[in-house]
């Protein structure tokens, strides 16, 4: 990955898909003196499924938080559909079509299931908002019967569904997910991964999937990045990373 393949090169007759829908250029971020992201660059093609892997503390969460403006970038740029969103406040970033399901889901347990979902679509003032609600409900049958219950009554898997559903309510172009498999049974994890793939196929969603579960994430995505101590240590097609023993042993631990 280098800067030459990023926007700028896209103008000369290449197909529109050649320009990544989400481009991260030399992004760095710190917590005080601790540098958590160091010159990270990524390019995620439209309707791509992309995994971001790495050990605890590698910087995965910091990366997603910096992308949506929850954490300040100290240098570098984030481009969404070619537009610089690096310094936008989070609530503006969301309205540009970048959704973020944070670590743990960020479901609001004091609100009902329905309120959580509606919240995700409030900023859209268009009339389609109620169609979206029904569509999202259709995706997650377990949520339908719990519609009027507070989210505190949901299981871990149902919370993750609700979190994803809330993000989808804003009809995003790109969905960032931070360890959706955390604490879930393998079967539920598999369902969620399958859902992500379906969403891409059906509504053309682009997905960036941060995972500790490297094997699972690589088997569902097309491209993967491996972070190590805040830098990209390896990247490539997911099946390649899966087959590459050196990367697997060094960074992915399986």
């Amino acid at each position: 990955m280098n800067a030459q393949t990023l926007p700028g090169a896209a103008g000369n007759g290449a197909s529109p898909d050649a320009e990544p829908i989400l481009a991260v250029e030399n992004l760095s971020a710190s917590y005080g003196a601790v540098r958590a992201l160091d010159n990270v660059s990524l390019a995620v093609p439209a309707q791509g499924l992309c995994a971001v892997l790495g050990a605890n503390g590698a910087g995965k969460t910091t990366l997603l938080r910096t992308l949506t403006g929850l954490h300040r970038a100290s240098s570098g740029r984030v481009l969404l559909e070619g537009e610089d969103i690096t310094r936008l406040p989070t609530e503006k970033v969301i309205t540009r079509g970048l959704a973020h399901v944070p670590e743990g889901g960020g479901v609001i347990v004091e609100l009902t299931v329905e309120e959580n979902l509606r919240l995700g679509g409030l900023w859209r003032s268009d009339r389609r908002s109620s169609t979206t609600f029904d569509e999202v409900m259709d995706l997650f049958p377990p949520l339908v019967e719990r519609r009027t219950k507070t989210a505190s009554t949901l299981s871990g898997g149902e919370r993750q569904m609700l979190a994803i559903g809330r993000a989808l309510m804003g009809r995003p172009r790109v969905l960032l997910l931070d360890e959706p498999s955390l604490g879930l049974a393998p079967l539920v994890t598999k369902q969620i991964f399958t859902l992500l793939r379906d969403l891409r196929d059906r509504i053309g969603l682009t997905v960036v999937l941060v995972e500790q579960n490297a094997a699972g994430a690589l088997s569902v995505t097309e491209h993967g990045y491996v972070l190590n101590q805040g830098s990209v240590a390896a990247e490539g097609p997911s099946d390649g990373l899966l087959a590459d023993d050196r990367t697997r042993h060094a960074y992915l631990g399986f």
Partner: protein
Amino acid sequence: MNYFITLTLNGLASGAAYAALALSLVIIYQATRLVNFAQPALALLSVYTAYTVTQLTGSYWLGFAAALTTGLLVGAFVERVIVRPIARTSQLNAIIVTLGLLLVVQGAVGMIWGNEQHGFRYAFSYVGRFSPADVFSLVAVGVVALLLFGLYRFTPLGLRMRAAAFHPEAARLSGVKVGLMLTAGWGIASLIGALAGMLAGPPFISPNVFDVVFVFGITAAVVGGLDNPFGAVIGGLLIGLGMSYVSGFVGPELATLTALAIVVIVLSVRPDGILSRPTARKV
């Protein structure tokens, strides 16, 4: 029996003002985990504004409207310009600043309007054992509580405000302008505080007129659980009732102690307040 009913109605009427003040504290506490000690000062500014407007125009209701508007605007201003920049450094500093603001505003009101008492009229006649003014207090606070409930529960703005209060980051990730919601919350809270002032102020106002009322208001908020609007209303009415019964049956000199007794009793049985749901907060 008649006497008991009278005491009950009077208790509810004075409790209504405590309930309104408690409500104004709880709205802000819920959103920012901060006890707004400046609330009586904002009510003071609102009530003195009403006083002046009524003097100039001769209309009580213009004054009333001016009080609520002042509460709304000054509350929003205080959050945006004074509290927010300081809360960024530390929550404790912000609380202390609200306390300081109380003293500053009381001093300023004394300088502008004088420290002596001014006569301040009731909305309606206060004669009778359950006077029109008493009825107005209860109805006004009841209506405000219902409107507030409707706002929070059924409107998009209310949903945004609750989301911002419970989980600012998740709210932001849902496109909510969390800062704006805080400002709105302070405005609404201070509007309700101004209403409390309009009810508790008469027959005389002075820069310290709300000191005692504020103590009862904060007591009511604590009794209700500090982050539960319903609890605040019930707490306010409970304290109004308790004080009315004790001063009617035992003696007025014990009325203030009653408020303290209610706090001690309620908190020893339910440490998190009458209606609190301690488990929901843990997550």
